[in-house]
């Protein structure tokens, strides 16, 4: 009798254990619970990290505040700069109209023609004409460990292209909206190129007014450009033809500060 009772109790216990095991297995077999488990862990970590960042009275917040202030100031200055450039253009037009309507006796027409010529050659007039738009970009996904340094555009690449264009008859050129003058200051600063004081990043766009076919041929047949644009090196170069506008240097800077050291001399000695 006692044995029978023990046997029944053991069976009941076994059944209960089996049922319990079945129940637990059912919960963890359900992917929703697993998802919830993982999500709650991520929420926990994110919450902890967020609370931690709120608690920190960090230097980063101070920099951010300053950054936003300086950014606002810069935006205001850029707007002011645009307004001043518009004003300059309007004054230049006014000046031109007045010069045309002036009666300067005998010297008038000749003097004005000389003024226009000097202004044009000095790059102080925005000009238009048929020409090329050349776009240069570094190798796509440049890897400094495996790619050649030639896969990046350097100051030498830009001056090389400008020289080729000049040699094939370009009359006016610009580099990323800055008019090329007699002595353009183009040089590398780290991974960027500076033209005068403006820091530039790719794409580098060169505009050139001149005979399109000759300029295109000069670029396409140049061995250095052929090499750096080959699949092995990877520099990206595109050439488009069309009616273009090359900006005046006055849109970038006042030319007079680049002639401060020059004393005109008329004698031969």
């Amino acid at each position: 009798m006692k044995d029978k009772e023990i046997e029944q109790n053991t069976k009941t216990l076994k059944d209960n254990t089996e049922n319990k095991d079945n129940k637990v297995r059912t919960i963890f077999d359900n992917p929703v619970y697993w998802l919830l488990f993982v999500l709650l862990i991520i929420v926990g970590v994110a919450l902890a990290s967020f609370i931690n960042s709120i608690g920190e009275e960090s230097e980063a917040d101070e920099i951010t505040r300053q950054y936003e202030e300086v950014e606002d100031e810069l935006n205001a200055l850029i707007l002011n700069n645009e307004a001043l450039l518009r004003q300059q253009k309007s004054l230049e037009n006014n000046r031109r109209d007045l010069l045309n309507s002036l009666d300067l006796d005998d010297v008038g027409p000749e003097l004005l023609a000389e003024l226009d010529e000097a202004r044009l050659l000095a790059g102080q007039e925005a000009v238009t004409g048929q020409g090329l738009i050349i776009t240069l970009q570094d190798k796509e996904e440049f890897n400094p460990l495996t790619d050649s340094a030639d896969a990046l555009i350097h100051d030498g690449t830009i001056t090389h292209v400008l020289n080729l264009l000049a040699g094939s008859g370009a009359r006016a050129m610009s580099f990323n909206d800055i008019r090329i003058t007699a002595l353009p200051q183009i040089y590398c600063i780290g991974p960027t190129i500076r033209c005068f004081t403006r820091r530039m990043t790719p794409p580098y766009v060169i505009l050139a007014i001149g005979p399109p076919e000759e300029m295109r041929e000069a670029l396409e047949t140049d061995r250095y450009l052929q090499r750096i644009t080959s699949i092995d090196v990877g520099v990206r170069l595109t050439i488009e033809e069309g009616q273009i506008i090359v900006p005046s240097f006055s849109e970038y800077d006042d030319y007079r500060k680049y002639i401060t050291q020059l004393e005109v001399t008329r004698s031969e000695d």
Partner: protein
Amino acid sequence: MKIKYGRSIFVIVVCVVLGVLLALQMTNLNRRSRSRDSLQELQNSVIEYQRKNQELDQRNNELYNYIRTLENELSGSEAGAIAKIIEEKENYAIFAGLRRVENEGVVISLSCKPPAKMRDSVLRQFTNELASLGAQAVSINGERKASTTEIRAIDDQILINGVRFDRSGIFEIKAIVDPDDINGYIIPYLENVKSVILQELTGENWTITIKHEDKVVIPALSEDRISYQKDLLLPVE
């Protein structure tokens, strides 16, 4: 059924909370990425724009006064427009390289012995370096560097402004630069460029000398040079 709905709502709520937290965290990261360096860069841009705006403002004021002079000339109340026009024309001509100029500067002489020949790339490198150093006028063998001057080797000659020079001869680059920087900065810098070039040309017999001269005379661009052509240019109205 109720349990199923409750579970779904719970998952949605958890996901929304997680999304919000991640967004806030990303904003924080963005803010932190604004380092002192980028702030400094931004401040430099502000200084640059302040300077530019100041200069533009000054230039506009001068233009305004110039226009007033022209208006007065037109109305007959003042004479002086011609002087202003001549001054403006002369400044443009100096900047374009149409005037013979002189001042303190540097003279770089380059030559090489056969079988080596003068390389256009070396001449270009020196002129580009001089431009970057703030040179205001440059000539190579008496040819004024203008905005469309080419320096190109063709066979035994080097073409500058369309004029051919023998590659076995001496090439002389003259530049007018800021006198205050010549000895302290410009000449040491050019000497450094020179040694880099000579290192690249090891095995070739090159001579490069760099001198400071009190009077460097740079000729004007001749009217018959290619760089003087402007036939394909139309001013934008």
